[in-house]
């Protein structure tokens, strides 16, 4: 697969060379999956399209799909910088070190890395507080399950994913004390066949709610085939599976951020920032809760969403203990962003271990 990507990026580079004439500002996007994944990368590409729409001919955008996390990413990003990109969005956690490395070599190019935590003078980091969406998900899931078993398809054991599991668990447990989470680590962001297998394994073991932190719609299809299992859209609305099995979704909306940051580069006002927006700022959206969810559950889920949005409630509010039983948050205390950003522990009650 490496060679595939090498040749794709070589072809891309040729493409870049021939089209890079007209526009003043050039914005590059590095994607981890295909733009047609219907999830994570799809939404980033919607953000790119919003940039095109906003600025028209003044901005030229380029993107490379299916870039593996690691050394390949560094080459692709370097290539983009060499081809004259002014601003480069690297849209997956695993691009963190490659982005920092390339940024050192190109001090004049601005970089934006999604979901990471390493910032530099010309590297901003941005992410969305997906865990707020997970809280709403857990709230619905905990009440919808009949087997008290929720299956969770996790991708990689990074803080982002662990935060999501914790948040969903806390809020499911709140409404249903008997809840149990079964977690599968797929070690991939995008592999429809594997995601489908994982979903089937969870369903066979009694899960009737599937939450996913992988990018394809395959688990939705598996749930639909099983018939009595509900799911939530991940990253994108995945509304083609609504109203059942998909009962709601977490939608990433990158468009306003991408437009604002492109504008900043054009105006020369770009500065390295650390952005972490949630439901309140519109970066995280909750997709329509379908009629498969009883009205009172829907109402309380929406109330929770509103409290998260206006800041009157934090998804990690004490009293909370860590999995090993040690105290984490006292009654009424909320988690600080530093702890959340580096979260590497489960909360009390989760019966699983985090892979190293």
């Amino acid at each position, binding site marked *: 697969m490496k060679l595939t990507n090498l040749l794709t990026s070589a072809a891309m580079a040729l493409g870049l060379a021939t089209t890079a004439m007209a526009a003043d500002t050039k914005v590059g996007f590095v994607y981890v999956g295909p733009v047609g994944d219907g999830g994570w990368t799809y939404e980033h590409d919607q953000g790119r399209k919003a940039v095109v729409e906003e600025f028209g001919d003044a901005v030229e955008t380029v993107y490379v799909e299916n870039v593996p996390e690691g050394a390949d990413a560094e080459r692709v990003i370097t290539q983009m910088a060499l081809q004259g990109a002014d601003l480069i969005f690297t849209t997956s956690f695993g691009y963190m070190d490659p982005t920092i490395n390339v940024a050192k070599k190109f001090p004049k190019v601005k970089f934006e890395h999604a979901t990471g935590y390493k910032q530099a003078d010309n590297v901003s980091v941005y992410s969305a507080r997906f865990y707020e969406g997970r809280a709403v998900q857990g709230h619905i899931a905990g009440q919808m399950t009949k087997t008290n078993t929720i299956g969770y398809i996790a991708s990689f054991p990074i803080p982002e994913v662990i935060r999501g599991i914790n948040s969903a668990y806390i809020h499911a447990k709140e409404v249903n004390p008997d809840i149990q989470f079964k977690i599968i680590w797929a070690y991939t962001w995008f592999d429809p066949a594997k995601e489908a297998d994982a979903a089937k394994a969870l369903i066979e073991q009694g899960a009737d709610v599937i939450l996913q932190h992988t990018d394809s719609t395959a688990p939705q299809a598996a749930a639909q085939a099983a018939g009595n299992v509900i799911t939530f859209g991940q990253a994108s609305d995945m509304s083609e599976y609504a109203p059942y099995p998909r009962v709601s979704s977490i939608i990433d909306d990158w468009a306003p951020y991408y437009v604002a940051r492109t504008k900043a580069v054009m105006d020369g006002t770009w500065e390295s920032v650390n952005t972490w927006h949630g439901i309140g700022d519109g970066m995280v959206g909750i997709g329509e809760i379908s009629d498969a969810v009883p009205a009172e559950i829907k109402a309380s889920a929406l109330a929770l969403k509103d409290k998260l949005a206006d800041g009157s409630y934090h998804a990690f509010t004490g009293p909370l203990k860590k999995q090993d039983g040690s105290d984490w948050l006292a009654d009424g205390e909320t988690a600080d962003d530093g702890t959340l950003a580096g979260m590497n522990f489960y909360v009390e009650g989760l019966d699983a271990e985090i892979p*190293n």
Partner: protein
Amino acid sequence: MDLSAINPVLLIASLMVAATPLLLAAIGELVVEKAGVLNLGVEGMMIVGAISGFAISVESGSPMLGLIAAMIGGALLSLLFAFLTQFALANQVASGLALTLFGLGLSALMGQSYVGIKPPAMATLDIPVISDIPVIGPILFSHDPVLYIGIALCAGVWAFLKFSRGGLVLRAVGESHDAAHALGYNVIRVRILAIMFGGACAGLGGAYISLIRVPQWTEGMTAGIGWIALALVVFASWKPWRVLLGAYLFGGINVLQLNLQAAGIAIPVEYLAMSPYLITILVLVIMSADKSGAPASLGRTFHASQ
């Protein structure tokens, strides 16, 4: 940890499903390699098969037509490879890699308007009475027809290679194309037919993923299974039953490790995640201790004048 949560009957039934695309692609490639041709384009043919099958079954509403279209799609793409390597005498490794790249790109293009569409469902072969037998019923008699085709194909290829005259010719071409040519066999024709068979099998395997196993279309959805099929043929020492064993082992351990994870068993997930690759290779390497080697003309270009 709760091992009782794993239902062995459902586990075996789903491992057979997980193994089928790999089995189909590998059995096709086995025939190609037995004829002395190394086609590294399996992944490309699979993905083109996946989208051809998906598109046709969505348009026609018939999954069966889709599967046939997938085979045709895979075979058509393989003809490109056949032309490059058998007539233009291009390097097989390079042509095969090019085929994969081309296939991935072409399928993305073809599939643009099919993202997010649900294909018509394939009926499982629920034979009354016997599919209701406990244990054996769900494992053996309640799958989709393609799964049985995969097993039948494996048996068919084995019998063809071992017992039939055609199989003997095919193996002769793969072992020594010069000798086969001297005996008056049309080496190029045999190889083209083998390549097309491999393409059709890979296409069917791809469509199995997009129509039955997942079922939906997303770009790059074969996610490397074609490459695993290639490796499987080598580790199985070019023997059909070992390919079947390897595919079931790989699919089985893949499904098993997901089940073990879900059951919360205390094996580190990293080991579980690499176990399918490791165990499949280990078992097949131990089995291939009998030194049965590759077809002698594998990957060599043939021209009658040489």
